[in-house]
């Protein structure tokens, strides 16, 4: 038997593994913190970062959108997009809250039916059921009806917001039970975010689900040819994204101790921006939960930095817009550079 050998890689020297985009985001985060720290000492004569209260407010503020962003991240990695998250937060918040009211409030929505002071598990399950339905519909539309994800989830974004507004004709719902409040009290949102982030990091790294999510986002045709049931997988991806949006809605409601129909407006864009800033590629196949978490912290630092420096709130939205566009521009540039490098 003749032995022959081929050494692949002599033609083009194999390149080192690229600079991970998460590292870029981390550097950005550190630069921002240092910047605000310096400005803080110059303008306010105090530290920005080394302030326990400010830090805890900063992290709890972004943690809710962070939970949403984890769901959005895995959708983007699969090559799709989910614009419905913010509205799903609103719908979940309203419907769940109506089952979480305390009997101390005489005008509670379901007081006649006696559905007050219910155990915490009931509003949670109802809220998650609402979010599950929204995610499932997104998934069915994208995977089986073959509607582009942008359009399908845009439809859900409008519809779910409609549900949130219709539910009480726009009236807020308040007076939750103490046990429900506890879900959003103190640093609870942060712990919930951390738990979800760790679980999904592990899922994306070590399970079939993760591997197939990256594979579909990377080359859907190849994934299909390899025998992956792309439709079923995408259905799962969008349903999970819906569930995480619902969880974000529940935490936000508990933290605010009220539900408002306009909860979560533009949060879907914040979530997408967090992911993209953290190195998740909008063309799919690349990114990580860690990156999104860093993106989330960048958001947190910017907003609490602006408040700290008493910058007018209007500027915040302008900067936010610039960050979103900047992050996508960065993503495009990265892709172009990578395409040229091959």
């Amino acid at each position: 038997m003749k032995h022959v050998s081929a050494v692949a890689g002599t033609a083009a020297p194999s390149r080192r593994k690229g600079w991970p985009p998460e590292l870029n985001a981390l550097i950005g985060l550190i630069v921002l913190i240092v910047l605000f720290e310096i400005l803080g000492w110059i303008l306010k004569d105090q530290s920005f970062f080394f302030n326990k209260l400010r830090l805890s407010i900063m992290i709890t503020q972004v943690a809710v959108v962070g939970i949403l962003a984890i769901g959005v991240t895995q959708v983007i990695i699969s090559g799709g997009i989910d614009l419905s998250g913010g509205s799903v937060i609103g719908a979940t918040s309203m419907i769940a809250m109506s089952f979480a009211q305390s009997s101390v409030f005489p005008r509670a929505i379901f007081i006649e039916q006696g559905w007050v002071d219910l155990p915490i598990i009931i509003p949670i399950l109802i809220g998650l059921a609402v979010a599950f339905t929204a995610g499932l519909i997104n998934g069915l539309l994208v995977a089986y009806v073959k509607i582009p994800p942008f359009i399908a989830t845009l439809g859900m974004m409008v519809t779910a917001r409609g549900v949130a507004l219709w539910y009480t004709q726009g009236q807020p719902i308040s007076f939750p039970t103490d046990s429900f409040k506890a879900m959003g009290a103190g640093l609870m949102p942060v712990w919930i975010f951390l738990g979800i982030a760790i679980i999904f990091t592990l899922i994306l790294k070590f399970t079939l689900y993760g591997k197939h999510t990256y594979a579909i986002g990377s080359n859907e045709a190849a994934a299909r040819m390899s025998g992956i049931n792309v439709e079923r997988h995408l259905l799962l991806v969008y349903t999970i994204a819906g569930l995480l949006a619902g969880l974000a809605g529940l935490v936000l409601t508990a933290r605010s101790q009220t539900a408002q129909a306009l909860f979560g407006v533009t949060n879907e864009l914040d979530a997408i921006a967090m992911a993209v800033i953290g190195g998740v590629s909008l063309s799919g196949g690349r990114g990580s939960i860690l990156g999104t978490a860093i993106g989330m912290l960048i958001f947190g630092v910017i907003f609490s930095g602006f408040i700290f420096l008493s910058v007018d709130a209007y500027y915040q939205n302008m900067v936010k817009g610039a960050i979103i566009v900047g992050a996508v521009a960065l993503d495009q540039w990265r892709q172009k550079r990578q395409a040229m490098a091959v």
Partner: protein
Amino acid sequence: MSDVILKTVGLTKHYGGLYALEDADFELRKGEHVAIMGDNGAGKSTFVRQITGVEQRTRGKVIFNGEEVAFSGPLEAREAGIETVYQNLALADDLDVPSNLFLGREKILFNLGPFSILDFKGMKAATEAALKRTAVKIPNLGNTIRNMSGGQRQCVAIARTATFASKLIIMDEPTAALGVQETAQVENIIRQLKANGEPLILISHNMRQVFDLVDRIVVFRRGRIVANLKKEETDGQDVVAYITGAKTGIEYGDAA
């Protein structure tokens, strides 16, 4: 004739009024490497697509491994043991080498349905073994396909066919997009497959490559097989004559 791995009888494909493939009778024995040649649009790829179930034939029979088969899709063909390396590589650019080799048939450490935990060690070891079988050396298996050269990618795509106990490998112009050195690598893999006794159908336009690698050359012209030539009994000029239509095999007289 138990040593015949693939046989087609009267294989025909019409696209509406276009007769892309007419009455193709073809035979491939175990361990044999056969090249399919012909001009563009001669029916080479159409022929392969009918076998692998990418398209459904108009009529005719495909007998694979002694059984008549009709694959509903390329996946079914693959499960039956026919591995195809396509012109456009079916690889996921953002995954590493073992992930691509095992895409869709991952090794599982712990079964949890869609959230099953992957056996990375097992897949890496099997990948190394497969690369050894095909004599491919890829420096860093953990590297993503995106960071590899065209030749390395093609090697991964081919190694994939060798990872699983395939009964027949089909390559559709595997070196069409590659440079000289990379082509040599792929050709070495094909020689290794020959040495391992794995049957192969090679679609190629490269005369030198075909004469270097295969035992037999089948020429297609305008949807028909016009020649079935043993390598030793023919030469490049002869093959070109069949491809262009200057000559037609005696047994295929009606095809002219």
